[in-house]
């Protein structure tokens, strides 16, 4: 039954959902066999949240070991496995599923489509990603590794050769790393194909490419990048496996093998990978900041161009991770140039966001608090990135705690903050219930304090000469107190994250009803009920501008008159 008094008119189906869901087993079965993009998106997101807690727990173990020098909480074999798993988990089992989950849920809704272009491949992609993660974690118990510490990989998440060759990495820990990521890589590529096809082919009537929400643009660019950069990683992991089992010498120093080629392959994947992770955070900011500032995004075409520019230039910067490997000065200089150039479109985006808030009427709901903190934190992270792009200074800072502080500033301070904002913004749409704002504020302020105590101060031991990947450090080098405070900050973030997890569970059962459009927003996902019915829209939407719901709510001043 349609209600034509609501925006979008007949698009919202207000038929009460049927009360009978079937037995518990039937419900679980419906999730296992689903091809609905919304359910698949929720499974990706749930998977990511579980691994956020696991990876976070691993981080807390590391920080306990590093809180005092010469600590004996974790022996080196265990510490090396935990930090390798922490990095690998957070990037591949938390970061990637989280961004793909949000894409899966939102992209079809935002373009007014019924589902993704290839629903069955969508389900296949999720299960491949999930399988990869299970394979990786099985390594903890699968087989007794050397020195009885299990077979979890212990070679850092970037797994430089020849440490990963059979001569130096006996047992199967490296194999678990390589093979589980190859498997989950299939899932990632499948998701990218789906996003591109959906975006190019399934937009609703009237939605030209330049009328798509910026989130959809960013996911289009991200998907293009995924198609280009996952391949070098998979290829390198296959070559590594050939080295390890079929007598190859790609990355060792025998028979003409060249170890530094691994580094090139890995970082050709690895650098764009972190942009694959951060662009979706920008996507969320692009949706949340305008709605809570009550203004259209400032400079939509420039935002599209800047995002595409970031995606493209980021493919050319990889060897700024390798300034110390002994490339020629001309080669080093090239990567200094390309890396500092990528800062230009990134800065443009920050200016555009501030300009969006300028002259607005900013409502600081929890979602907006997270995205506002993201802005200043991402600015800072970008500037320490510029410092790292200056190759001679990078010769000091590379592989130190300065780098760890920098990339956690981006990964946590930008990406996790934005995604927390995204949770508070879209949880009502996904579940039909509002997240508790009081718990949300506690979550935000506690996480903010913990984040800054931990990662602001983490820059200092790096500047004082503390390298990364070490299970302990010498007393008397002036690193002791900083490490203790950093560890405390980590604990505080842990508490805040638990509050967030509790908020999600509590609000799912006891939260107030959200209704279709609790934030008074403007994109198409708010034009259907919360949660949307399986078919999303009762009739296919027709749009005439970038903010279809703004046009309906403000018929006297529609966007279509201006842009």
């Amino acid at each position, binding site marked *: 039954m349609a209600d034509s008094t609501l925006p979008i008119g007949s698009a919202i189906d207000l038929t009460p959902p049927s009360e009978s869901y079937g037995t518990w087993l039937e419900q679980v079965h419906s999730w296992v066999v689903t091809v609905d993009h919304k359910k698949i998106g929720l499974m990706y997101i749930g998977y990511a949240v579980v691994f956020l807690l696991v990876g976070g727990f691993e981080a807390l173990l590391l920080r306990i070991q590093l809180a005092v020098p010469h600590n*004996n909480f974790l022996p*080196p074999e265990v510490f090396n496995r935990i930090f390798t798993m922490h990095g690998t988990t957070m990037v591949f089992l938390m970061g990637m599923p989280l961004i793909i989950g949000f894409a899966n849920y939102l992209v079809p809704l935002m373009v007014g489509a019924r589902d993704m272009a290839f629903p069955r491949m969508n389900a296949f992609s999720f299960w491949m990603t999930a399988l990869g993660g299970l394979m990786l974690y099985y390594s903890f118990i699968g087989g007794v590794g050397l020195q009885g510490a299990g077979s979890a990989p212990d070679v850092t998440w970037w797994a430089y050769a020849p440490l990963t060759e059979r001569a*130096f990495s006996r047992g199967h820990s490296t194999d678990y790393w390589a093979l589980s990521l190859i498997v989950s890589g299939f899932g990632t590529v499948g998701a990218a194909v789906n996003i591109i096809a959906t975006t190019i082919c399934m937009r609703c009537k009237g939605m030209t490419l330049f009328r798509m929400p910026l989130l959809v643009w960013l996911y289009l660019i991200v998907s293009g990048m995924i198609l280009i950069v996952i391949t070098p990683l998979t290829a390198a992991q296959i070559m590594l496996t050939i080295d390890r089992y079929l007598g190859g010498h790609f990355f060792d120093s025998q028979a003409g093998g060249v170890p530094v080629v691994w580094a090139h392959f890995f970082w050709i994947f690895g650098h764009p990978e972190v942009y694959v992770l951060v662009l979706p955070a920008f996507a969320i900011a692009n949706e949340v900041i305008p709605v809570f500032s009550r203004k259209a995004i400032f400079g939509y075409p420039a935002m599209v161009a800047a995002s595409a520019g970031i995606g493209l230039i980021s493919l050319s910067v990889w060897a700024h991770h390798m300034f110390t490997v002994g490339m020629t000065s001309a080669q080093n200089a090239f990567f200094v140039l390309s890396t500092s150039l990528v800062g230009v479109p990134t800065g443009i985006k920050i200016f555009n966001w501030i300009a969006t808030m300028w*002259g607005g009427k*900013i409502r600081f709901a929890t979602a907006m608090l997270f995205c506002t903190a993201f802005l200043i934190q991402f600015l800072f992270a970008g500037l320490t990135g510029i410092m790292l792009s200056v190759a001679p200074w990078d010769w000091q800072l590379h592989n130190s705690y300065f780098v760890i502080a920098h990339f956690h500033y981006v990964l946590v301070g930008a990406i996790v903050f934005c995604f927390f904002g995204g949770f508070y913004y879209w949880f009502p749409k996904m579940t039909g219930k509002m997240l508790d704002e009081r718990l949300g504020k506690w979550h935000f302020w506690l996480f903010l304090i913990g984040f800054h105590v931990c990662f602001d101060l983490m820059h200092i031991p790096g500047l004082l000469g503390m390298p990364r990947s070490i299970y302990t450090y010498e007393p008397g080098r002036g690193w002791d107190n900083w490490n203790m405070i950093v560890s405390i900050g980590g604990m505080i973030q842990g508490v805040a994250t638990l509050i967030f997890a509790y908020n999600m569970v509590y609000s799912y059962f006891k939260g107030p009803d959200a209704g279709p459009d609790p934030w008074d927003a403007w994109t198409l996902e708010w034009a259907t009920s919360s949660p949307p019915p399986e078919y999303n829209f009762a009739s296919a939407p027709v749009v005439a501008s970038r903010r279809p719901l703004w046009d309906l709510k403000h018929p006297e001043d529609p966007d279509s008159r201006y842009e």
Partner: protein
Amino acid sequence: MSGRWLQRKGPGSAAYALLLLLSSAGHAAWAVPTDTVVYQTPSVFDAHSGPALLIHHLSLFVMQITGAIFIVVASLWLYVVVRFRQRDPNDDSEPPQIYGSTQIELAWTVIPVLITVVLFFTTARFLFAIQDQKMPPTALDVDAVGHQFWWEFHYKTLGFTTANELHVPLSTAQVPTTTSLNLLSADVVHSFWVPELNGKIDMFPNQVNHMWFTPDKPGMYVGQCAQFCGVEHAKMLLRVYVQTSEDFAAWVKNQQQPAVQDPAVAEGRHLFESQSCVSCHVVRGTAAQGKFGPDLTHFMSRDTLASGAADNTPANLKLWIKDPDYVKPGSLMPAMQLSDDQIDKIVAYLDTLK
């Protein structure tokens, strides 16, 4: 600090107490050799050599630019966050919708590009100055070879090899002296980093990398391996001793001698040469010519053993030989299953290798 922390309530001090408890439990469980603590902070801002000074100057320039950018943009952010908040929660009217401005957007594109150009050209100048510096013919030429988990220093023009503690001559304005370090690896990727003397350069097998320094102040400089190289990466510590030309010449003269042959410890030397010690270690002038482990010809002239893992004392040496895994778990030296008496004799022998 700990007293006050523990008296206060709140999540910060609770976390601190929990961390102290857990790490104390760890400490108590395992008593490693307690050694003298070397108090030295290897700050990247404490430059004592040509390349480190150049890097320091560049870093100040870069920080001024990034600092200015941060102040400008952060102030705008702060202004926006405070000034444009919704004052009246019941106010439902929408502010004027501004979609963009070509002039403003052009300005904030062009200015960052200009900043990038300035930054690039300045960086390139320093990059070429450090990396492409021509080595003077009088430079001291040393090969540094990274091993799991120790450093080999091969003074090829002076005719000896040592391990873990690098001695280099002082460079003064009157007598500038460059040390030219070639960086190699015997196994996996390592990285040579002594922050006060230079940035780090990696050591890749089958590849020769290079760095140079001109240390301006005598003393001992600490560093460590900066590329994860396996289980004991954290304990692959580095010491560089910068010596005046007289001290350095004296040190070189001593290192060039073959090993001391003290008849009082003949039994220990005999044990050393008949056990497998000789298959890994070199003691110049004896039958020990193994190349896998560190050169021990002048072992007692070093301050630490196991590349910084413990002070070089007979007590620690005894612990080390009895069970290297106890001092440095994961080190590649096996426990040789020697009796305590045999170890005592070998330690007495090694103690004479000054």
